[in-house]
C-alpha cells in the first residue's frame, strides 16, 4: 500500500484547519469585543511548538514519500474516468524537496518575524494548509488533480497576502485571486481539449497526444495550449498577467512573500511543464507559432521584469519584479525545448527558490529590525546588520550568475540549450536577452550591498542591530545552500539532465 504518501498532504491540512477553527487565543483578556493587543507569550509559544512539530513531521514524511520511488495512489473518482490520482515522479519529487526545505526554513524565521504582524494563529494555520496543498500539487498524477490543487493553493495562500488587513492588502489579495483564477480557468479551457485529444489525462513523459484524434484539429489544440501557457503563466508571473506579483509582495509579511515568490510561483512552472512535456509533448509544439509566441512572451518578461526592478525603489517590490524576470528565465528554458535548456530550467527552478527566499527573508529582517522599506534608506545597513547583509550578498551573487554560485550553472545551461535549439533568430536573441537581464540584475541587487557595507563618508555608525539568531540561522542555511549547490552541482545536474533527456 502506498496510501501513506498522502500523509504529508493530509497531516498539515488537517492540522491547519484544526488550528484555524480552534479557540486558541493569542491575545490576553478581550473585554466586550475591544481587543487588547497584549500578546500572551506562553500561548504563542505553544502555537509555535505545535506548528513546528506538525511541519517538521510533515516535511520528514514528504521527503520520505518523495525519495521512496515512484508510488501512486488513487483517492477517489471525481467523475467517471477522471480520478483524483497521485503519482510521485521525478519532477514532482524535485518540487516536493525544495518546497519542503524552504517551507521549513521560512517557518522558523516566521516565528520571530510574525511578532510584529500579529494574528499568528491565522497565519500559521494557513501556512500549514498551503503546504499540504502544495504537496498534493507536486504529487498529483493527472491534469485534473493538478488543476484541483492549483485552485486550492491559490485560495489558501490568499489569506497570507491580505494578512495585515489594510485596504491595500485586501485589494492586492483580490488582485492575486482574480488573476490566478482567470489563469486557472484558461488552464481549464485547455484541459477540456486535452481530455479530448490525449489518450489519458495522466502524466506520461513525452506526452500522450493521440495523432489520429488530433489530425484536422491542430489549430484549436494549439490555441488551447497557448491558453494554458498564458493561464498557468499567470502564477509564474509571465507577461501579460504578471501584475499581481508587485502588488501582493510589498503588503504580505516577509515569510509569506518568500514562499509566494520562491515556491508558489513554481506551481505555475510545474503546471506548464506538465501540460507541455507530459500531456502535449514537444513534437507537436516544436516549430509552431505557439512556441514562438511563448518565447517572445518569456523573453519580454525577462527583460521588462529586470527593467522594472531596476527602476523600482521599494525594496520588496523590486524583488517582486525580479521574480517576474527570473521565473521567465525558467519559462524561456522550457520553451526552447532542448534537453540542455530544460536542464537549465529545472536547475533554475530549484536555485531561484532558494535564492529568492533568502532575498525576501533578508528584506524582511531589514524591515523587522530597522523599519526601512525603501532602497535609498539602506545606506549603512551592512554596519548594523552585517550577517543579514552577507546572506543577501551571497544570494545576490547567485542570482546574477557569478561563478561559482548556483545561478551561474543554471544560466549556463539555459544559454547553451538555447544555442543548440532550432529556433531561428531566438538562438542568439535568447542568450543575449538573458545576458542583458543579468547585467540589470546586478544593477538592481548590488547597490544595496555596496551602499550597505560602504556607506561613504559622513555616515555615523550606529549601534549593531543584528537580526535575532532564530531569524538569521534559517537565512544563513538557505544562503549557504545557494552557494553550495553552485560549488557541487554534479549530482543535481546529472539528475536534471536525465529527466530532460527522458522528456524529449
Amino acid at each position, binding site marked *: 500500500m502506498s496510501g501513506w504518501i498522502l500523509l504529508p498532504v493530509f497531516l498539515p491540512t488537517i492540522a491547519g484547519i484544526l488550528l484555524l477553527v480552534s479557540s486558541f487565543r493569542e491575545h490576553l483578556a478581550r473585554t466586550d469585543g475591544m481587543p487588547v493587543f497584549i500578546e500572551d507569550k506562553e500561548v504563542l509559544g505553544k502555537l509555535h511548538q505545535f506548528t513546528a512539530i506538525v511541519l517538521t513531521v510533515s516535511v520528514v514524511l514528504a521527503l520520505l514519500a518523495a525519495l521512496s520511488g515512484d508510488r501512486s495512489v488513487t483517492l477517489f473518482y471525481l467523475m467517471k474516468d477522471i480520478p483524483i490520482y497521485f503519482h510521485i515522479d521525478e519532477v514532482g519529487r524535485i518540487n516536493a524537496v525544495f518546497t519542503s526545505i524552504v517551507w521549513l526554513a521560512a517557518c522558523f524565521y516566521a516565528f520571530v518575524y510574525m511578532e510584529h504582524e500579529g494574528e499568528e494563529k491565522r497565519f500559521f494555520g494557513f501556512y500549514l494548509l498551503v503546504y499540504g496543498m502544495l504537496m498534493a500539487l507536486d504529487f498529483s498524477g493527472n491534469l485534473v488533480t493538478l488543476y484541483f490543487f492549483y485552485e486550492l493553493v491559490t485560495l489558501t495562500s490568499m489569506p497570507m497576502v491580505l494578512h495585515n488587513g489594510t485596504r491595500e492588502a485586501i485589494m492586492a489579495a483580490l488582485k492575486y485571486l482574480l488573476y490566478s*483564477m482567470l489563469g486557472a480557468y484558461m488552464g481549464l479551457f485547455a484541459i477540456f481539449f486535452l481530455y479530448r485529444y490525449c489518450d489519458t489525462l495522466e502524466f506520461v513523459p513525452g506526452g500522450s497526444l493521440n495523432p489520429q484524434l488530433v489530425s484536422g484539429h491542430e489549430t484549436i489544440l494549439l490555441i488551447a495550449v497557448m491558453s494554458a501557457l498564458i493561464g498557468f503563466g499567470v502564477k509564474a508571473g509571465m507577461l501579460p498577467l504578471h501584475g499581481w506579483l508587485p502588488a501582493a509582495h510589498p503588503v504580505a509579511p516577509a515569510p509569506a512573500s518568500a514562499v509566494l515568490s520562491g515556491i508558489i510561483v513554481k506551481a505555475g512552472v510545474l503546471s506548464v511543464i506538465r501540460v507541455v512535456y507530459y500531456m502535449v509533448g514537444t513534437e507537436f509544439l516544436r516549430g509552431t507559432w505557439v512556441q514562438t509566441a511563448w518565447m517572445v512572451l518569456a523573453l519580454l518578461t525577462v527583460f521588462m521584469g529586470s527593467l522594472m526592478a531596476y527602476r523600482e525603489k521599494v525594496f520588496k517590490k523590486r524583488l517582486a519584479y525580479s521574480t517576474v524576470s527570473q521565473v521567465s528565465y525558467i519559462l524561456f528554458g522550457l520553451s526552447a525545448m532542448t534537453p540542455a535548456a530544460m536542464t537549465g530550467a529545472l536547475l533554475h527552478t530549484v536555485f531561484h527558490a532558494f535564492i529568492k527566499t533568502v532575498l525576501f527573508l533578508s528584506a524582511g529582517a531589514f524591515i523587522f529590525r530597522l523599519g526601512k522599506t525603501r532602497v535609498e534608506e539602506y545606506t549603512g545597513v551592512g554596519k548594523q546588520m552585517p550577517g543579514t547583509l552577507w546572506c543577501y550578498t551571497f544570494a545576490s551573487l547567485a542570482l546574477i550568475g557569478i561563478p561559482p554560485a548556483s545561478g551561474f550553472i543554471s544560466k549556463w545551461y539555459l544559454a547553451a540549450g538555447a544555442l543548440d535549439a532550432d529556433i531561428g533568430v531566438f538562438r542568439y536573441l535568447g542568450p543575449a536577452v538573458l545576458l542583458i537581464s543579468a547585467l540589470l540584475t546586478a544593477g538592481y541587487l548590488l547597490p544595496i550591498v555596496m551602499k550597505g557595507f560602504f556607506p561613504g563618508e559622513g555616515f555615523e555608525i550606529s549601534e549593531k542591530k543584528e537580526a535575532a539568531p532564530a531569524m538569521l540561522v534559517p537565512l544563513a542555511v538557505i544562503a549557504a545552500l545557494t552557494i553550495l549547490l553552485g560549488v557541487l552541482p554534479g549530482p543535481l545536474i546529472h539528475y536534471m539532465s536525465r529527466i530532460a533527456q527522458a522528456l524529449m
Partner: protein
Amino acid sequence: MAFVQNFPFMSIILSLFSGPLSTVMDRKKAKIINTAVLLILTAMSAAVLVYVMGTGESYVYTMGHFPAPWGNEIRVGVLEAAMALFFCVIMLLCMLGGVLERELELEESKENLYYVMVNLLLCSLLALIYTNDLFTAYVFVEINTISACGLIMIKQNGRTIEAATRYMIMSLLGSGLLLLGICFLYDLTGHLLMSNIQQQVRILQETGAYHVPLLVSLGLMSIGLAIKSALFPFHTWLPDAYGYSTVSSAAILSSLVSKGYIFLLVKIFFRVIGFDIVKNSKVVNVLFVFGIAGMIMGSVSAIRENNIRRMIAYSSVAQIGYIYMGFGLGTTDSVVASIYHIVSHAATKSLLFVAASGITDASGDSTSFFDLTGAGYRNKLAGAAFTVGSLSMVGIPMFSGFISKLLFAQSALESVNKMLPTLIALAISTILNAVYFLKTVIRIYAPDRKLASEKHFRTITMADQPQKAAALILFIILNLALGLSSQPVIRLIRSGLSMFS
C-alpha cells in the same frame, strides 16, 4: 402493484391536506405537524427512489381507474423520484434554518398560515414533478405561484407587499403564456396527457403539418416558464422578493420554486414535444442567448449591490442563466449538466441565504456591507458556511459548483457553433462571481477593531441557534458530498433522462 407505488400520489395528497389542518392548530402544533409531514414525505420519496432504482424502469400510476386518454396519471421514474427526494430535503433544511426568523419576523397569528403555504407549495412542487398530465401541471403551477406569493408577503412590510405584487404580475404573465401554449398544443393534438401528446406530435412532425403552430406553442411554453423562473431579462421581480422576505421564504423561493418550473420545462422538452424536435427548433437558440446574457448581467448587477441579501438574489439570476444556457446547448449531455446545476444551485443558494441570515444576526440585523465587517468572527459557523457557499458558486474544485461548470464546459465542446461563446461566458461569469462573492467573504473576515463594541453586535455561537447551526452543517455536508462524489448523482440523472423518452 407494489404498495410503494402509491407513495407519490399519497405524498401529494398528504401535503395538500396537512395544509388546511395547520390552519386550525396553534403555531407550536402547526410547526410540529409541518416538520412531521416533511419528514414523512422525505421518507416516502426515498422509498420511491429506492423502488424505482430497483426495478430500473418508470411506472405509470392511473388515478380513479379511468384509462389513458381520459384519466389523470402520475408517472414516476428515477429522475422524478430523485428530484422529489431532493426537494423535500432542501425544504426541510430551509425550514430548519429559518425557524428563529419566523418566530421573530412573523405575526404570531400568521405563523400557522406560513405552514399552510409551505405545505401547499410542496404539494404543488411534487405534483409538478410527478404528473403526466399537462393541464394538471398548469393547475399546480398556479397553486405554486399563489403559495409563493404568500411566502413573500407574510413578513409584512412595504417592501414585501410591493415585491409580492410584482411577483404576482410577472408570474401571471408567465402562466398565461404557458396556458396559451398548452391550449395550442391541445388544439393540435387533442390530448392533455404527456405521452399521448408526444405520439401525436411525432405524427405531426412526420407529416410536416402544423409546423409553425407547434413551434409557437413550444416557444410560448418555454418563455412562460422562463419568466416564472426569472430568466434574464424577466428577472426584475426577483431581487426584492428574495431580498426582503423572511429567510426560509427566500431560501425556498430561490432553490425550489424556480427549479420546479425549470423541471417542468425539462419534462415538456423530453416528454411532451420530444427533445429531437426541441433541439432542431430555434427556441433553444433563444434560450441560449438569454441564458448567457443572464449569466453576465446577473453578476454585474450583483457586483453593484450593497445589500448582501439582494446580492445573493442577483446571483440567482446568473445561475438560472447557466441552467438555460445548458438547455440552449441542446444536447443530452448539456441537459444533464443543467439538471445537475439545478441540484447544485438549489443546495448552494439555500445554504447562502441561511448563512447570510446568520451573518446579519451577528451584525445588528443590518444587511448592508458596511456593517458586515468581521461578522465571520462573531458568528463562526455562519461565516464558514457562507465561505463554502461562495466557493461553490465561484466554482472552486471540491464544491458542487465546480462539477456543474465542468459538465457545462464538457458538453459545450460537442457543439461547434456554441462552444466558444459558452466557454467565454463561463470564464467571464466565473471571474465576476469571484469578484462579488469573495469580496464578501473577505469583508466578513476583515478584522473589525472598532465597530463591534460601538454598535453592540452580538457574538453568536452554535448553542445560541441550534436549529440554524444544524441546518448549516447539513448544507455544508450536502455541498461537499455533491462536489466530491458527483458521479452517482450524474449517473442517476442520466438514467432518469433516458427513462423520459
